[in-house]
């Protein structure tokens, strides 16, 4: 059984038995999973981890659900690549790229959905659901297909078809809701209360969120059992950002790695930067915004974990950085041209944010840095379609050589 003791309110610390709850009945604060780290320390080891599966389930001792082959689409254990071209361009000695765009449904969401789905089945659910405009929908639908269970995916009705093709292909029940984004939000909140389904990011959210801890564990393992000096990650709800740090700290607490001094840097795009703006203004209260960014996968205007992301920045002596909208595509192109990795808008934000952090002197030349690339570029080709600009020639060798100046 997973080494979890209870669920606990992040605000008032009241504890609850493990179940499909996400909100404290007393203060309505969010619940989180409480781990028995002493028990985990007894059973885990570097050897045990390295002999585990090549997926996020190698860290099963640290997760709130047990491994379940029925749902496993092999999420996680994605490459950590030592950067050469990008590092040189930015003037960094030790830059690593965590390429999570190669997950089975092409984003880091496979980590959180894998854990949420495994836990949902443990808790007796036979249906999983989500409200999503992109990556989350793809992952929920893919996991449900693998598990042989029903999936409901709720989307705003004005969403372009292409945006949900990656989810529709797995044949979930897709429900397009007429109304504003807020209407979709409200309806899903009500449905989560009324139907016996596991809404992955609502009623099983405490388990779901902890799937992102594996982004911390993996980087530590892949760096040779150490934490980097800096981690740069894009942020939408703020949950992934906080969980990366929690993962690193848990490894420290159970003795898998030494002291963690990682500074956590949160990257957001100008058109939706509630967390980074609060950081810049020195506030811990999020001022909600209406998302207007081309980095659609970061489009959360009132982030559930925004406050906790700000606390993570504070605890780690990190920072937040805003990428201008016109820098997002530049970031995508820079990563592609220097490292051969094609990322979506969120990755462009992370790269643009990294660049700015180096320019500011926040990240210094000799400091080890990991940048998280969380989604695949083929999902948002419209952002960079201007790169398609071939040289047109007649079908002759002469025309070819003339056009490229190759003629002797």
């Amino acid at each position, binding site marked *: 059984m997973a080494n979890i003791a209870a669920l606990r309110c992040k605000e008032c610390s009241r504890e609850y038995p493990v179940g499909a709850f996400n909100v404290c009945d007393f203060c309505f604060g969010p619940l989180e999973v409480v781990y028995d780290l002493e028990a985990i320390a007894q059973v885990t080891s570097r050897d045990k981890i390295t002999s585990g599966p090549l997926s996020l389930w190698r860290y099963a001792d640290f997760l709130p659900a047990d491994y379940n082959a029925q749902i496993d689409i092999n999420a996680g254990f994605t490459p950590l690549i030592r950067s050469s071209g990008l590092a040189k361009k930015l003037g960094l000695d030790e830059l690593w790229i965590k390429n999570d765009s190669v997950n089975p449904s092409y984003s880091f969401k496979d980590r959180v959905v894998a854990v949420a789905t495994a836990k949902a089945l443990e808790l007796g659910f036979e249906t999983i659901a989500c409200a999503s405009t992109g990556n989350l929908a793809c992952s929920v639908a893919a996991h449900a297909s693998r598990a042989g269970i029903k999936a409901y995916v709720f989307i705003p009705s004005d969403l372009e078809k292409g945006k949900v093709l990656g989810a529709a292909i797995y044949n979930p029940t897709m429900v397009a809701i007429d109304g504003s984004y*807020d209407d979709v939000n409200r309806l899903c909140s009500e449905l989560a209360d009324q139907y016996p389904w596991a809404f992955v990011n609502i009623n099983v959210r405490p388990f779901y969120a902890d799937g992102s801890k594996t982004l911390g564990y993996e980087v530590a393992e892949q760096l040779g059992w150490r934490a980097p000096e800096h981690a740069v990650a894009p942020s939408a709800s703020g949950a992934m950002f906080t969980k990366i740090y929690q993962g690193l700290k848990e490894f420290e607490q159970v003795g898998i790695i030494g002291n963690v001094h990682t500074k956590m840097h949160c990257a957001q795009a100008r058109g939706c930067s509630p967390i980074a703006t609060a950081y810049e203004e020195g506030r811990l209260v999020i001022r909600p915004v209406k998302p207007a960014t081309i980095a659609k996968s970061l489009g959360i205007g009132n982030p559930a974990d925004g406050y906790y992301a700000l606390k993570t920045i504070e605890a780690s002596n990190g920072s937040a950085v805003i990428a201008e909208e016109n820098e997002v595509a530049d970031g995508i192109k820079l990563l592609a041209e220097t490292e051969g990795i094609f990322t979506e808008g969120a990755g462009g934000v992370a790269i643009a944010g990294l660049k700015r952090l180096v320019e500011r002197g926040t990240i210094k030349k000799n400091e080890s840095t990991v940048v998280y690339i969380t989604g695949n570029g083929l999902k948002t080709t419209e952002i960079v379609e201007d790169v398609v600009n071939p040289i047109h020639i007649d079908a002759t060798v002469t025309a070819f050589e003339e056009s490229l100046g190759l003629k002797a």
Partner: protein
Amino acid sequence: MSPLKRVRFTFLDRLIKEPVIYRMSHDFNVITNIRRADVQEGVGWVILELEGEILEIERSLEWVRSIGVRVDPTLGDLVEP
């Protein structure tokens, strides 16, 4: 027992000074029960439980939205990209 609904109000700028929750319970047949709040200069939020007939709760929330208060589920946005 009447239906209950949990919501999060976010107040920006001038709305912080308005007695929105008082007016809500005064003008509508809804009982308001504040559970947690944080109000700072320029922005504040309140998480509260509303009790009343469902249509009356919806009417009251419609009014709250109409004066510019943002109304969300308690944990913020649930629709994820």
